[in-house]
């Protein structure tokens, strides 16, 4: 009898595709009841995925539905319809929460506990105990810069220090996925730099990062990809390198009669009669310089301009910068 060959799938099944996602939302709708009793839709048919190992920024104006989406992912609220999976499990399940670290948007920690006691409490709820918990707590407090304040009560700490407590607690138990809501809130520039380094280190160790932030400069420094939502709908999903490339342009000021129409996006003549052309790529700029020189013209100025993520964000939202 000829043994059966194992069945080799010709293409990835939906299940296998989902397996590579740390977060997978499909057609998510979130509704609240307003005080007058009318339903208000905070999230409308949101679908997106975050692959394992990615760093994804979740952007949008106030009231766009970011926090509502993150609350669904953590199981704090139930979606009206649609599905949300976190690390292959239903969002909010014990299984998904045991592998996820979460930093709330505005977190308050018990005012009469110390950062050490706070982390010990969350660690015990995470299933950690004994010496391992104690060591991890000390290590995390040191890592977020709270070593000297570990015995002060939380009520005596500044907003930035409390945010550090929050960041430390989200890292307890070495989670596979970090969901951070307004992660840089309250942190000073030094704190932000330390946080960036910490998050990048965690990502290198394999942790997936999904976070919302209004600090777009921070997002552009750390993210692989961004998702922009507005009025509960996904309006843009872009690789950050592509966005940066699309935002960079080079300005060449020259004189002389040179045809650059096939290379440039736009031209204008300045007050002294020089031509100014802008180019989307460095290659086009170099080609243009060569042509100007060959045709006997003279390059008078070269400027490289890098648009910001803020420009892209505002443009995407249709707001004049």
């Amino acid at each position, binding site marked *: 009898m000829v043994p059966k060959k194992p069945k080799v799938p010709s293409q990835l099944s939906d299940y296998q595709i989902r397996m590579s996602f740390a977060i997978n939302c499909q057609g998510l709708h979130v509704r609240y009841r307003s005080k007058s009793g009318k339903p208000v839709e905070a999230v409308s048919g949101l679908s997106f995925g975050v692959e394992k190992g990615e760093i994804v920024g979740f952007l949008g104006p106030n009231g766009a539905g970011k926090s509502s989406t993150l609350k669904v992912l953590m199981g704090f609220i*139930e979606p009206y319809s649609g599905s949300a999976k976190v690390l292959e499990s239903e969002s909010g399940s014990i299984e998904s929460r045991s592998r996820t670290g979460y930093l*709330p948007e505005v977190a308050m920690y018990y005012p009469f*506990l110390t950062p050490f006691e706070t982390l010990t409490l*969350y660690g*015990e709820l995470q299933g950690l105990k004994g010496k391992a918990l104690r060591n991890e707590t000390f290590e995390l407090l040191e890592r977020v810069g709270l070593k000297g304040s570990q015995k002060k009560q939380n009520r005596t700490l500044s907003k930035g220090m409390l945010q550090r407590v929050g960041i430390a607690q989200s890292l307890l138990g070495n989670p596979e996925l970090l969901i951070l809501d307004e992660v840089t809130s309250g942190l000073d520039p030094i704190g932000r730099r330390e946080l960036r380094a910490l998050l990048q280190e965690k990502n290198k160790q394999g942790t997936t990062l999904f976070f919302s932030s209004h600090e777009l400069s921070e997002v552009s420094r750390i993210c692989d990809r961004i998702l922009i939502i507005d009025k509960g709908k996904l309006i843009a999903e872009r690789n950050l390198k592509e966005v940066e490339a699309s935002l960079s342009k080079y300005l060449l000021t020259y004189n002389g009669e040179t045809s650059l129409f096939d290379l440039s996006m736009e031209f204008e003549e300045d007050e002294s009669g020089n031509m100014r052309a802008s180019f989307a790529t460095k290659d086009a700029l170099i080609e243009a310089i060569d042509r100007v020189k060959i045709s006997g013209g003279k390059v008078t100025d070269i400027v490289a301009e890098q648009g910001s993520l803020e420009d892209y964000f505002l443009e995407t939202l249709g707001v004049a910068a």
Partner: protein
Amino acid sequence: MKKLLIWKALARGVVLESVRRKDIWVVAILGLLTILSAGALGFFGFSGLELFAKDLGLTVLSIFSTVLAVLASSRMLPDEIKNRTLYPLLARPVSRFDFLFGKFLGAVAVSWISFSLLAAMVAIALFTFGVTFELILIQYAICKMMGLVLVCAFSLALSAYLTPAAATTLSLVLLFGSSMMLRGLTMAALGSPDLAWLYTSVSNLLPQVGLFDLGSRATNQNWTLVPAWVVLALAGYMAIYSTAMLTFSWAKFRRRAI
């Protein structure tokens, strides 16, 4: 085992917060001042002071420990939501029932600690006034502590459905007025046999905290102990009623958007 650790961690957090917030100490000081004022009467030579001091001491103990138990449990859940301390807790692999139960245990622990503290002060004061120790005082304390479990479960259940202020007020009204209400309901049931089932049902729904108060019995000298089966029956009632109240809280809290 894992659940035990979760409940322990949550309960310890509640106790630590409460002790450092100094709620317990304020009540203890108030209790002490009230009892000491009884001592002042003795200074002026009132007769029968022993009995009076004992009655006053046990009443103070009963009232203050109940008030503290109500405050500890009725504010807990709404405060967690209002202060947003709930989010990092429920982001952990903890079910909402475990969260609720751990907090309930914390409230019970706080009320027991404050009761013990007050009881120690009352005991010192009573022995100073020359009151002799009787075994029924121990039985009084055990029953009172069981009653506090009931108080915590009842207040927590109300707080899951009402605002903190409403839950606290209603808890205090129903707990302190329960004996009066039960008497009224019994009279009403006797007065109109057709509606007796309704009055009986309502009285069964109310927490019978009066059953746990052996204060009157303990005040009088040389009264015998309550039989052990009665204490066991009270423990059974406490377990059933508290489980029902916790289930009632969980029914609301388990799907609540936070």
